[in-house]
């Protein structure tokens, strides 16, 4: 297959691989796509940039046959088509790599690829597929062993499997939904190499992202969406960060958050030689130690699943400490209940804000007192004091800018950003000494993200010890005073943010590098 590269025809003369014309799609109460036009030419990486909720994923779900547009037309290679299901999309040569991989973990790579593939023999389909996989792997530089089981693979390798799945089904257009969110910087570089290779082969690639740096690096053209509309399409060479950000948000964004110099006081949170098990009983934390001072943000960087969740849960009193100690304001809290730890002044902004952080059916005001409902002023002799609760809710809604029809509205009707504001308003009321924030801006739009980062910085300036766990390296670089990198339950090193480089942190996240941990 791999011959001498022939002279390629200029792709621009061919009809676009995909042309979406005037696509409109509404959900109850939301216009998700408003007369959107979008095209991908062969041999092009076209980035779709926008905040969460801008309508990028809706548009791609329409192209992939998961939704049907209310109106508008879809042309593939110049021909008008109806895409009624992902099956139609695949037949038309469209492949999609979802943000959350859709793989069967106990099966091998080849078995996963063979699943649902047409034209494979009834018996041992994976055998035939494995051969084909090897061909494709070398052709595109997508190195995965077809015989390995998926659960053994890293996130980057799993993503390669998803891309191979699409390629083997003959995808000419590949949709990648936030593909770098689970990758280390090194893995991202690998992915970009593969994408460039695919581009050379004449594939069209749609790259969905909200990260400006990435988009500028990989894309040929960039289409920016905001609130369901296309704001504009520009060539990557002609675009810069500030312009794109302004198009995305509709106003100027200050990138550097004001950061005052840190005065580490006494250690409000100290962890000594902590051992914790995961849900499956394996060691999730293997003897980690660190301290967070008052007036300091310690960022915990790492790829998801390296013990961050267990660390946060152990600190919040939700997971058993097997060995080692946790000290809050000098008091050992091993074995204390979540309530006791919360009462000591530990705020916990949980990772899964809807699953854990709120009670969806209860009104906003009752959600605002969770964890404090058992103490005055909200509770007196076992009875709730609704006057005090209402008063507190009104103040919190105003202070944190929670957008809600009323304090009695069920929390489930709020948007993601407002739910997070609600959680912050609740957790940060009453001046916590320690703030544990797990992925506090994950999935939020730029406006809410900025506000929440400012709130965390203010907490620090007011003397709280903040532990910030995040997968967003830029966020950690911006906010943290020191950065601890966690890999497979161990701390690879703690470095001052001022001296850290992305590359160094990336290597530590991948377990390639270890620096001496300072006290």
């Amino acid at each position, binding site marked *: 297959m791999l011959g001498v590269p022939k002279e390629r025809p200029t792709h621009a003369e061919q009809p676009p691989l995909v042309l979406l014309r005037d696509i409109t799609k509404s*959900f109850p109460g939301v216009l998700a796509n408003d007369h959107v036009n979008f095209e991908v030419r062969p041999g092009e990486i076209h980035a779709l940039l926008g905040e969460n909720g801008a309508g990028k994923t809706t548009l791609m779900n329409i192209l992939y046959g998961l939704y049907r547009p209310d109106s508008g037309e879809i042309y593939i290679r110049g021909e008008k088509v109806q895409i009624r299901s992902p099956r139609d999309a695949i037949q038309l040569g469209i492949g999609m790599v979802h943000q959350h991989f859709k793989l069967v973990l106990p099966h091998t790579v080849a078995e996963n690829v063979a699943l649902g593939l047409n034209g494979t023999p009834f018996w041992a389909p994976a055998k035939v597929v494995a051969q084909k996989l090897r061909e494709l792997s070398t052709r595109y530089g997508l190195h995965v062993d077809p015989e390995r089981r998926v659960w053994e693979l890293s996130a980057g390798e799993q993503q390669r499997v998803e891309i191979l799945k699409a390629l083997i089904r003959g995808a000419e257009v590949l949709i990648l939904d936030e593909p770098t969110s689970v990758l280390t910087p090194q893995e991202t570089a690998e992915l970009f190499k593969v994408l460039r290779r695919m581009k050379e082969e004449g594939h069209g690639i749609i790259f969905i992202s909200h990260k400006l740096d990435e988009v500028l690096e990989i894309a040929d053209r960039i289409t920016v969406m905001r609130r369901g509309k296309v704001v504009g399409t520009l060539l990557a060479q002609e675009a810069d960060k500030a312009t794109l950000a302004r198009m995305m948000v509709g106003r100027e964004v200050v990138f550097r958050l004001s950061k005052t110099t840190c005065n580490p006081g006494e250690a409000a949170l100290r962890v000594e030689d902590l051992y914790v098990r995961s849900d499956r009983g394996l060691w999730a934390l293997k003897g980690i130690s660190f301290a967070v001072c008052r007036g300091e943000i310690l960022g915990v960087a790492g790829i998801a699943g390296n013990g961050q969740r267990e660390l946060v849960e152990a600190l919040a009193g939700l997971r058993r400490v097997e060995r080692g100690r946790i000290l809050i304001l000098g008091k050992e809290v091993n074995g204390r209940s979540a309530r006791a730890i919360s009462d000591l002044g530990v705020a916990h902004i949980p990772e899964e804000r809807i699953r854990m952080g709120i009670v969806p059916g209860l009104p906003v005001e009752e959600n605002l007192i969770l964890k404090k409902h*058992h103490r005055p002023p909200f509770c007196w002799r076992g009875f709730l004091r609704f006057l005090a609760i209402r008063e507190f809710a009104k103040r919190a809604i105003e202070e944190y800018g929670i957008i809600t029809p009323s304090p009695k509205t069920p929390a489930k009707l709020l948007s993601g950003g407002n739910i997070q504001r609600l959680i912050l308003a609740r957790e940060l009321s009453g001046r916590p000494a320690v703030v544990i924030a797990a992925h506090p801006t994950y999935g939020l739009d730029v406006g809410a993200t900025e506000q929440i980062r400012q709130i965390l910085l203010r907490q620090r300036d007011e003397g709280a010890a903040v532990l910030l766990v995040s997968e967003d390296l830029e966020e950690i670089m911006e906010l943290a005073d020191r950065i601890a990198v966690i890999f497979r339950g161990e701390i690879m090193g703690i470095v001052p943010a001022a001296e850290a480089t992305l590359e160094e942190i990336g290597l530590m996240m991948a377990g390639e590098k270890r620096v001496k941990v300072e006290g």
Partner: protein
Amino acid sequence: MRRLGPFVFEPRLSPPRYIVFGVSVLAVVVALLAAAPVFLGYGQNPWQAYAAIGRGIFGSWPSFSEVLRRAIPLILCGVGLTLAFRAQFWNIGAEGQLLAGAVAATGVALFLRVPEGLRLPLMFLFGFLAGAFWGLIPALLRVKLGVNDVISTLMLNYVMAYIVEWLVHGPWKGPTMRGFAYTDAFPLAARLSFLPATRVHWVTLVLGVVMAVLIALLLARTRLGYEIRVVGQNPDAARYAGINFTVVLSLVMILSGGLAGLAGVGEVAGIHWRLRSPSHISMNYGYTAIIVAWLARGNPLAAIFTALLFGLFFAAGDYMKTTLGLPFQITGVFNGLILFFLIGFDLLMFWRVRLARKEGAWISQAGS
């Protein structure tokens, strides 16, 4: 949004009250329609039968009072179950908890040496405690060992039913009952008085209504009620907030089981004046109360009214048996159908169904 034939389904996040009420009424009406073939099978015109039952029951105070009498155990058990369901504890065990209360009351009535004035109050107290104990077992089993609450509460019903059987055939068999499987009759001081010209043991009725009000207050106004609602609506958030599941679920089941126990006291002290075979004491009140609580949508005050509705069905069953010559078991068919349609019609509460507009329908035809 989903399409099914000519219908479009749109999710409805929080159904307004009138929808909840309307859907519940609809379920009852459809169940009445669906039960019609049973009457036809017995050679009766169902509409005439329904009309005759209505006339018979609402015709006079003594016959209407039977509705109240039947509703008493349903109110107590139903209110307790609304509480358990609000905490997402699936208490299917009101039947056993009711029987536990009946056993304890019988013990106090027949065997405890106390001043006669204290006998009834003590019967209620011990009946409550016995029901609470029988309810507490599955609560602790679930919190401490993760035992499924549906299974454990259901199985404990059988255990308690056999304990009652054993008592009335064995150690507690009444020497004066000439071979019947009864205990001796209760002394007068252990019997509840009736409303005039009825068999309505009003003390238990008042107790049921008061309890409904208290439980409603507990849920809406107290710290414990708040914790119960949090545990029921999002156990993960409850864990996150440091709410103690052992305490909350134990208290819920002490109350839920205790209330069913009170219902058992009312039945033996108000109706039978003795302990006898479990099927005579309870007539499946504990199971029917599940439907009562479900229809009340977890609202203890609403449970008073849904209990009255099912009291009406029981009274109708009595009337069918005595006047129309139909088997009482038709009541069971009714109750089953109502629960069936209630659960089925939940779809209508959380999805708005409408006919697809012409235009839209064509697009969908092209699509599906």
